[in-house]
Structure formats: structure tokens, C-alpha cells
């Protein structure tokens, strides 16, 4: 396992109003890991991911993501991190290909990079020409993951990436995430399904009641 830390969260407290959604959390994730954050609904998994994506302010403690300070260098954190929540963040009226092309223009990726991302995520010409609104849940997820690849995100933060997918769709996503790690990305997924995520991840972080209660090999 590499020693370069891409997530270094220390004594982090995130308050949502007066409620401590994350309490005294210490998390360290190294480059190239595929880590699952596991816990019941409302445990603080999404809060941890959103903190790492630069979407929530720290109330106390410190956090460095991809080497950048989460408070002082928030825009740099966001530019290097891909976050996929419950929505896919796609334009439903555009085709999958037009979505990828749009992101290519936004981040300055060339046509070859966009095509390579589509190929990596198994999006063939027929799917690329289909409006996103008409794609299946799994195909939409694959398109959203392709967007992350187009964005050249180094750290992928995925909140319940298997939600709403059938067994085949879940297997496809697992394979794509393993490929992403093999290609150099670090992947962190939040899931309440221990069995599936345990078979996928190299390490598990257990969250309960906003507290990290266990970190270790699966």
C-alpha cells in the first residue's frame, strides 16, 4: 500500500446546526486504496464524504485532501475530487455523449480523453447517442463515472453507488471501480450494505453515530 496520504482528517467535528454529524473523526486514506465507509443510515457516512469533497465546513479539527487544506484551499480540493451522490449530475435532455463532451469543454479535456473515458466505462456508440433520460439506472451511473474520468478526478467519493441498480448493474459498477483504482484513482464509497462493499474494498471504515469506531483491513 502506498504511503502518500490523499485523505488526512484529524479530530474533525462537523456540526449540522447543533447536531454533531461527525465527532472527533480521524481518517487516513492512502493513494490507490479502495475503501468502503460502512454504517447504518444516518451514521455520518455521507457527512464524511461531503466533508472530503469540500462541501461541508469543518467546525473543529483539520483535514487535508489531496494535500490541500480543506478550509484554505477548498477550490483546489473540489477540482481534484469527484463526488457522486444520490443524483448523477447529468443533463437529462442531452445524450450521454453530449454530457461527456460538455464536461470535456468545461475542464479542457480533448476529444481523445473524452472518448477514452467513455470506452473505460463501457459506453458504446449506441449509448452515447441516447438521451440520458432514456438510459437505465446503471447506464446513467456509468455515464456519471465517465464524467469523473473526463474530469481526471484523482479521488472518487461515491455515496451508495449501487443504490437502485440490479445485480448485473452492481457487478458492472464494481468492475469499473476496480478498473479506476488500477488506473491510479483512489476510491472511497459509502455503503450500508456490508456484504457487497466488503467484497469490493481493500479496507473498511466503520461509522456509527457520527464516530469512527473501527478502521482496518476487511
Amino acid at each position, binding site marked *: 500500500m502506498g504511503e502518500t496520504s490523499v485523505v488526512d482528517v484529524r479530530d474533525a467535528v462537523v456540526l449540522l446546526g447543533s447536531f454533531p454529524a461527525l465527532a472527533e473523526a480521524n481518517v487516513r486514506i492512502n493513494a490507490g486504496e479502495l475503501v468502503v465507509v460502512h454504517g447504518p443510515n444516518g451514521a455520518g457516512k455521507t457527512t464524511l464524504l461531503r466533508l472530503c469533497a469540500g462541501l461541508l465546513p469543518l467546525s473543529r479539527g483539520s483535514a487535508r485532501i489531496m494535500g490541500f487544506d480543506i478550509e484554505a484551499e477548498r477550490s*483546489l480540493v*473540489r477540482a481534484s475530487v469527484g463526488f457522486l451522490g444520490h443524483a448523477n*449530475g*447529468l443533463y437529462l*435532455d442531452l445524450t450521454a455523449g453530449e454530457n461527456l463532451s*460538455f464536461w470535456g469543454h*468545461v475542464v479542457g479535456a480533448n476529444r481523445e480523453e473524452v472518448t477514452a473515458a467513455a470506452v473505460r466505462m463501457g459506453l458504446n456508440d449506441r449509448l452515447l447517442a441516447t438521451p440520458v433520460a432514456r438510459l437505465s439506472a446503471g447506464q446513467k451511473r456509468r455515464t456519471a463515472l465517465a464524467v469523473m474520468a473526463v474530469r481526471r478526478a484523482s479521488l472518487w467519493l461515491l455515496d451508495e453507488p449501487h443504490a437502485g441498480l440490479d445485480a448485473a448493474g452492481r457487478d458492472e459498477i464494481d468492475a469499473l471501480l476496480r478498473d479506476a483504482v488500477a488506473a491510479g484513482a483512489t476510491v472511497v464509497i459509502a455503503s450500508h450494505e456490508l456484504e457487497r462493499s466488503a467484497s469490493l474494498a481493500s479496507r473498511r471504515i466503520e461509522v456509527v453515530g457520527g464516530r469512527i469506531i473501527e478502521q482496518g483491513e476487511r
Partner: protein
Amino acid sequence: MSASINRTFGIAKAVASKDLRVEMRSRVMTNQILPFAAIVMVLFAFALDNDGVLQRVAPGLVWMATLFTSLVVVQRSFAVEAADSAIDALRVAGVAPQGVYLGKVAALVVQLVAFEAVLAFLALILYRVNVDAHGAVLLVTTCLLGSLGIAALAAVYGGLSIAGRGRETLLPLLLLPAVAPVLIGATRATESAFGSDGARVVEGWPWVGLLAVFGAVFLFGGTLGFGPLTDE
């Protein structure tokens, strides 16, 4: 600095192209909004069946119709962003909000100008207003700057309305009072272009100057404020 500006304009171009593509594909503007506006113009012609009255009120009718239409266009523009949280994806990715804002404004201006061209044409036909060459130049300039003022302000409020979930209904309440100066300036300039009530073309240019100032101020403020206002 220069690279950053180029990047911002690159994002703006991508966002504007995407918005116009979505609009052309959905055809809501051409199949729903424009026919509705045309019907309103025709009904006004029936209701105020007096040439003198129609010529006097034509500029106001054109800009009122534009203003109400802009509400629908802005809501659609941001509904597209909110449907699958695409605007969140842009925000999470750290995409320069200035670029997103400028792209949104550009797409709105194109749609509003196209809409105003049809309304002005209908006013010429239905309300029998006369526009000479100088008036046409004034009218085109007014449409461009009036649309810029409306779009620059509407894009900020549109962004705000989706940042605060469930606040879409606040858009008219926030936007209509704020664009009153643009409405006044554009209506006065259009009166001069149409020659309503004996107004001369030359009298319209100071109003165009006012529209330019409002457009520039709203655009500058929007470029600075869009990011912080739409961020969580």
C-alpha cells in the same frame, strides 16, 4: 490571469451552447411560449381596438410580454440544472461560477432577443406602428441591452431559487421589482423607435445609455455574486 479569463470564457461558451441545445431540443420556446405570447398580442389588439391606443401602448406590451416570458425561460434554464443536480456537479467540481453565470446569461440573452424579434414584428403588423431605419437601429440596440439587463439579473435570482430548494415561486417576487428600471428604460427607448405619441428616435438614445449602465452593473454584480450566492 489571462489563462484564467480564457478558462472562464471557455466554460461560459460550453454552458451557453449546452443551454441553447437543450432548448432547441425541447422546443418549449417555439411550441409553447411564443404561441402564447402571440395570442396575448392578438388579444390586446382585439381588446384595444383603436389604432391610437395600440400605438401608444405597444412598447409597454412588448416589454411586459418579454418580462413575463423571461420568468418562464429562467425557470426552465435552471430547472434543467436542478433535474439531476447537474448544477451541484458543476459546483462540486470547482467549475468557475463566473463562467457558469456568464454562459447562462448569454443563452438567456439569445433566447430573449429571438423572442423580442417576434414580438416586435407582431407589434408592427397588429398595432400598425412604423419604424424607419434609424428607429430600427434604436430598436435592435434596445432589445440587446434590455435583454442583457433582464438576463444578468434573472440568472442570479434563478441560481438563488435552485440553491434554496422549494423557492422557485419566489423568482417572480424577487425579479420583477428589481428589473423595473430596465423595463422603464426599454419601454421609453422603444416608444422612440416606434414613434409612439410623437416621440422622436433621438429621444430614445439616453434611455439606451441607461440600459447600458444597468446591464453593465447587473452583469458585474452577478459575475461576482453568483458563486457565493449559489454555494451552500
